[in-house]
């Protein structure tokens, strides 16, 4: 459909062009100037965006060669030859240039000047009017294969963003204003609010003008706007314009903004793929590439059902969750008993209608209009009413809370079911939930694999495998296989598992697939915040409770329409308008006011800006987004390109940290920055050790650690450790791969949850630890030790943000650094203070470049590790003159990459034998920690990962203080080497790693211990 439209419009364009040509030469030049000016003027939006576009295109080109053809439907592929012919004339690079030039040149009378793509296309089109179809195909081919620009054009024409349409109309009426229009268009592309405003004025003009608009559109290759329709949980449709090439994040952001939702990470957007399957929109990827159709219909849904909704911060979040659950219950997706149906229904009534009013005429009326259960009947409605009466006096928020308290207990709450067959071909259902993977046969639970039990998740074609950690009595891990209907469903299940595991079990999202383990296939990783992170972040939310309406009127009306089941997704699909149609009618029909549009566009521009530039300090939300992004693979890439971004982001976080510190000063932005610096340090203890026990004991405050400088290495690293190591080796590759791999091979992929993942019970504790760390930092920062972390409570809240940001940054950096060899201090995260940077000396650890990433079991025994020399972040690098000698088993996973499926078993974890004496350097004091955490140690877990000569141990401590929980992670890195160890380097690397691994945590203290049996060398 698109293609046809495109051809028609283009033809018309040409006609128009010719008609107007005579008049325009002058104008054209003017236009050019204006365009240039406008671009400059709009610097924020326009220029940058332009740049961005170029980059994207370049990327595209790179990928195009390999990947795009894959995406093409078969019929397109067949015609590839045609497309190429068209494309031949213009090389990809030319295109880019041509695009740039096109804008300016377009107005010019002579099409020849434009040359390039446009010409070709136009000519063809003219000739081919009769052969429309053919042409259409060819153009589409061209666009798909080689010409991003053309593609956009076509799509644009079909999509016809309102702004463009408006401009088009203007053209028709007023030629003189064309220039301005062009400006507008340009602006529109950049999504400047002003532009939209202009556009709006003209927007109302007749539809006829729309046809003409394509001309312009074609010329402006860059931003084509598409109207997405998002079905919201209350049953309404939210139309919003999105740049055609926009990533999922754009849409997410707009929807969240529209909903005024801050606790966003539990939600997601779904779309229906070409097989009518619901898929989650990946925020890090282009929307267009995901939906692969012109059906820009989405629905907003809960993606991760919080196990305890009462922990959500805002009522609006709970409200949205309620809406989702009501739908789940009403549709039967969430089965429950009669009584529960009635109870939930009664809370719904209470929330939406308030107290039961006996006088109300025919109270059953509104009940029957509402859908509470799949098999709703009179009896149930009466029961609902009866219960409703008992809720008198309950306000809507309370009713929602009660609703959730009851709903969360349902056994199928938050369970995402997938059809499958077991190894014997028996039909079963696989349920993915917060705790793991459930296996159902009919309605019976016949097996369950908790996340901690799962070593690896993978799929190959339509087979889905999980590798199970051996039980106490078993020796070997086992692999359980399931068959899914097709490879798409297998992949979908796999993705859902990866995301759920990451969200519920990890402290921070896993570093994208740098890991060598995941060799083949999809590099997909969860890119959002984890539950831990989002809880921390939401604890920082400081705004008056937003007003929102709880009316169910929309739902009611819908059900009246005859859609008994309130299924948002269905609703979306039902609409099934074609995109262009929607544009015209819908954009206006939806009582979208100009203001709305303006607002949206403004938000978009804001978003863009935040992407391009350093994050705006003011709005907290964007920052958070950025954090999310940063953690995502895409972000990493971006980060590399634009290092400056990170620092900015980090700033806000720091502030929070400052608060934690309880120092009034720190709260100030300026101060925060300083704070950050301090915080940045990762505690690394590098030492040789004989016994783990030693390590703990030995840790003592080092005199060296100056106030701010000394940070505790605690980072949540449990999972990370392994990953990091791997990452370092493969980091480069991984990135490359990740870029290229975005296309995701559908065939297979693996995911090893355990490696990176922390222990389930520890989740809470980890958070606590963070806080603790902060406290410690504060203490140290100001007074080294003397200050006590009384302010801990404060810390907790602000902390998370900082940590996450910094962590993310760190991650990015780390990846890069690791690759490079950890040397660049300068590259350090923006978050990092200068002090830290200096620290980053090359560490001996790097020596293990090929570090075999070992996946150890969480409980891996800690081989005697000893903390090494304390490194106070920068100032003092403690060099251990004497390198400890350790005999280590080396596990090399180098092949994994290529091999794809190498599984590293826990058993494979290398064992380090320490022969050496331990020299202990005590730089930092563990005492600090003790002081820092008044709380109780709830859990401690140790994960050990070893590289050739490095052993990393992580302890996670939960502390409860007052109502706050703090999570402190202590990471101990033991480096045993036969040769001299560069402690500085090791320290630097460790810090980097820590940051990478625990983006949401901050480093409070770094302690370096050097241990030798000769204690002589203590610092």
């Amino acid at each position, binding site marked *: 459909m698109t293609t046809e439209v495109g051809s028609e419009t283009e033809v018309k364009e040409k006609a128009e062009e010719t008609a107007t040509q005579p008049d325009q030469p002058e104008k054209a030049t003017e236009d050019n100037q204006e365009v240039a000016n406008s671009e400059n003027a709009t610097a924020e939006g326009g220029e940058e965006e332009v740049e961005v576009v170029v980059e994207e295109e370049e990327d595209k080109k790179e990928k195009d060669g390999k990947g795009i053809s894959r995406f093409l439907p078969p019929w397109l592929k067949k015609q590839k030859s045609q497309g190429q012919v068209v494309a031949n004339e213009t090389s990809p690079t030319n295109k880019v240039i041509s695009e740039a030039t096109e804008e300016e040149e377009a107005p010019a009378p002579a099409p020849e000047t434009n040359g390039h793509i446009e010409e070709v296309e136009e000519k063809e089109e003219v000739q081919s009017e009769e052969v429309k179809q053919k042409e259409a195909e060819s153009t589409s081919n061209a666009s798909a294969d080689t010409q991003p620009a053309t593609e956009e054009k076509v799509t644009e024409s079909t999509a016809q963003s309102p702004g463009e349409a408006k401009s088009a109309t203007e053209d028709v009426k007023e030629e003189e204003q064309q220039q301005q229009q062009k400006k507008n268009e340009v602006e529109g592309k950049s999504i400047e609010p002003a532009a939209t405003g202009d556009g709006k004025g003209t927007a109302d003009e007749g539809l006829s003008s729309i046809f003409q608009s394509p001309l312009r559109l074609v010329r402006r290759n860059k931003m084509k706007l598409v109207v997405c329709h998002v079905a919201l949980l209350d049953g309404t449709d939210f139309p919003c314009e999105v740049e055609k090439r926009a990533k999922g994040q754009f849409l997410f952001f707009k929807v969240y903004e529209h909903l005024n939702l801050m606790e966003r990470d539990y939600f997601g957007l779904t779309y229906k793929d070409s097989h009518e399957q619901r898929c989650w929109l990946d925020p890090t990827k282009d929307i267009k590439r995901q939906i692969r159709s012109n059906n820009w219909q989405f629905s907003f849904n809960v993606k991760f059902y919080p196990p305890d909704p009462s922990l959500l911060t805002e009522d609006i979040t709970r409200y949205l969750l309620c809406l989702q659950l009501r739908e789940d219950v009403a549709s039967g997706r969430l089965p429950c*008993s009669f*009584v*529960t149906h009635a109870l939930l229904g009664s809370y719904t009534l209470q929330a939406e209608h308030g107290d039961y009013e006996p006088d109300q005429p025919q109270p059953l009326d509104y009940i029957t209009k509402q859908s509470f259960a799949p098999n709703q009947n009179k009896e149930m409605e009466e029961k609902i009413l009866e219960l409703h009466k008992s809720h008198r006096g309950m306000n809507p928020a309370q009713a929602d809370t009660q609703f959730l308290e009851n709903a969360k207990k*349902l*056994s199928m709450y938050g369970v995402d079911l997938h059809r499958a067959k077991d190894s014997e071909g028996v039909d079963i259902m696989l349920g993915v939930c917060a705790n793991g993977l459930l296996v159902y*046969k009919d309605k*019976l*639970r*016949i097996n369950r694999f908790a996340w901690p039990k799962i070593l690896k998740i993978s799929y190959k074609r339509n087979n889905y495998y999980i590798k199970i950690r051996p039980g106490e009595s078993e020796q070997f891990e086992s692999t359980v296989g399931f068959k899914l209907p097709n490879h798409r469903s297998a992949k979908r299940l796999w993705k859902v598992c990866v995301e759920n595991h990451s969200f519920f079990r990890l402290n921070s999202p896993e570093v994208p697939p740098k890991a060598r383990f995941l060799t083949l296939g999809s590099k997909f990783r969860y890119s959002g915040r984890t539950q831990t992170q989002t809880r921390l972040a939401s604890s920082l939310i400081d705004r008056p409770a937003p007003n929102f309406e709880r009316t169910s009127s929309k739902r009611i009306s819908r059900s009246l329409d005859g859609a008994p089941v309130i299924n948002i997704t269905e609703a979306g699909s039902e609409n099934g308008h074609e995109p262009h149609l929607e544009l015209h009618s819908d954009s206006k029909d939806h009582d979208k006011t100009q203001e709305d549009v303006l607002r949206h566009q403004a938000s978009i521009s804001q978003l863009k800006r935040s992407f391009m530039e350093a994050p705006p300090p003011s709005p907290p939300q964007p920052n958070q987004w950025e954090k999310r992004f940063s953690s995502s693979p895409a972000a990493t890439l971006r980060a590399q390109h634009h290092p400056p971004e990170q620092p900015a982001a980090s700033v806000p976080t720091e502030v929070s940290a400052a608060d934690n510190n309880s120092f009034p000063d720190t709260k100030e932005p300026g101060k925060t920055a300083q704070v950050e610096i301090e915080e940045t340090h990762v505690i690394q203890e590098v030492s040789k050790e004989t016994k783990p026990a030693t390590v703990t004991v030995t840790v003592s405050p080092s005199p060296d650690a100056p106030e701010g400088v000394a940070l505790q290495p605690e980072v949540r690293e449990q999972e990370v450790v392994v990953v990091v190591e791997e990452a370092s080796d493969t980091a480069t590759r991984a990135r490359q791969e990740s870029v290229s791999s975005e296309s995701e091979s559908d065939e297979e992929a693996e995911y090893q949850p355990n490696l990176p993942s922390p222990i389930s019970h520890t989740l809470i504790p980890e958070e606590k630890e963070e806080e603790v760390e902060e406290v410690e930092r504060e203490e140290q920062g100001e007074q080294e030790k003397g200050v006590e972390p009384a302010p801990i409570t404060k810390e907790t809240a602000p902390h998370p943000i900082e940590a996450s940001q910094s962590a993310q940054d760190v991650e990015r950096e780390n990846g890069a650094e690791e690759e490079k060899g950890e040397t660049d201090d300068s590259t350090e995260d923006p978050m990092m203070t200068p002090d830290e940077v200096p620290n980053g000396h090359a560490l001996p650890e790097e020596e293990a470049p090929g570090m075999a990433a070992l996946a150890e079991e969480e409980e891996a025994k800690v081989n005697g590790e000893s903390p090494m020399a304390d490194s106070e972040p920068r100032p003092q690098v403690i060099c251990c003159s004497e390198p400890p000698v350790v005999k280590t088993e080396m596990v090399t996973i180098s092949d994994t990459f290529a091999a794809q499926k190498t599984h590293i078993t826990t058993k494979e974890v290398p064992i380090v034998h320490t022969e050496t004496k331990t020299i202990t350097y005590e730089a930092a004091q563990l005492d600090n920690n003790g002081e820092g955490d008044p709380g109780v140690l709830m859990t401690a877990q140790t994960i050990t990962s070893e590289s050739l000569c490095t052993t990393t141990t992580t302890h996670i401590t939960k502390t409860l203080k007052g109502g706050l929980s703090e999570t402190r992670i202590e990471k101990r890195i033991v480096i045993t080497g036969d040769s001299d160890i560069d402690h500085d380097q090791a320290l630097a690397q460790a810090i980097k790693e820590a940051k990478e691994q625990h983006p949401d945590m901050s480093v409070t203290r770094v302690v370096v211990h050097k241990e030798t049996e000769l204690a002589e060398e203590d610092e």
Partner: protein
Amino acid sequence: MANVCTYGRFTHAIVRGVPTSFGRGGEDRAEEGAEPAAATVDLAKAQRQFGVLTGALRQKVGLQLIEIPPDPELPDSWRVEDVAVIQGDTALITRPFRLQRRAEAEAVRRVVSELSLTVVEMGAEEGGDSGGATLEGSDVLFTGREFFVGISDHTNYRGAEVLADTFRDFAVSTVPVCGGARLKNICSMGGPDTIVISNSDGAKKTLRMMEQLTDHRYEVLAVPEDAAANCIYVRGANQRDFLLHRPAEECPESMEVGPRNERTLQ
């Protein structure tokens, strides 16, 4: 409400007297390993124990006792727990494996109806047998959070499915019954979130499966004798908790393990 907050709150107890035909039903002879099958059944002792049980339930625990008179035609009718599974306001009338026992349900059905419970009949669908579903209540362990259904000689998957369909609010997991004829023979609830289970190998196997399948954490109280694993935990109205268990003579070794403040029964 729909969801049980804490396990063990009961309002009524339904019992059925020991008939004079006690021991002729075939159940005991075939299955009860603990009681020497060869030995002649001691009707008098059984009736005596029944008296102790009802007395404890009524007077010590303070439950409202509904006693169904014994029916000599139904020698196993005293196993009243087999024919109904009641949770919340819903009673599932089960379909015992042995045809002879299905008549036992009649009296119980009447009782639960009078209690104005929602009565669900297993076997109401699919031509009257729910696809061949069989289930006996002594294979059902309700923990307050979820159901475990022991797949045994008496209970099959289909029966468990019907149960799952009846109590939709809860997860229903199936576990193999090892080391005993019935799930309740080897384990039972000994308190909120506490499972009392026999220490036998078979029971351990079953326990492992339960642990694998559950999302919750239960305390496990392992007792040396099977007989000791069969008890009833009741949360009294006055915040007093009761654990009804077999007399110490029957499971002497387990007495040391058991909790202190329980009431002895029988």
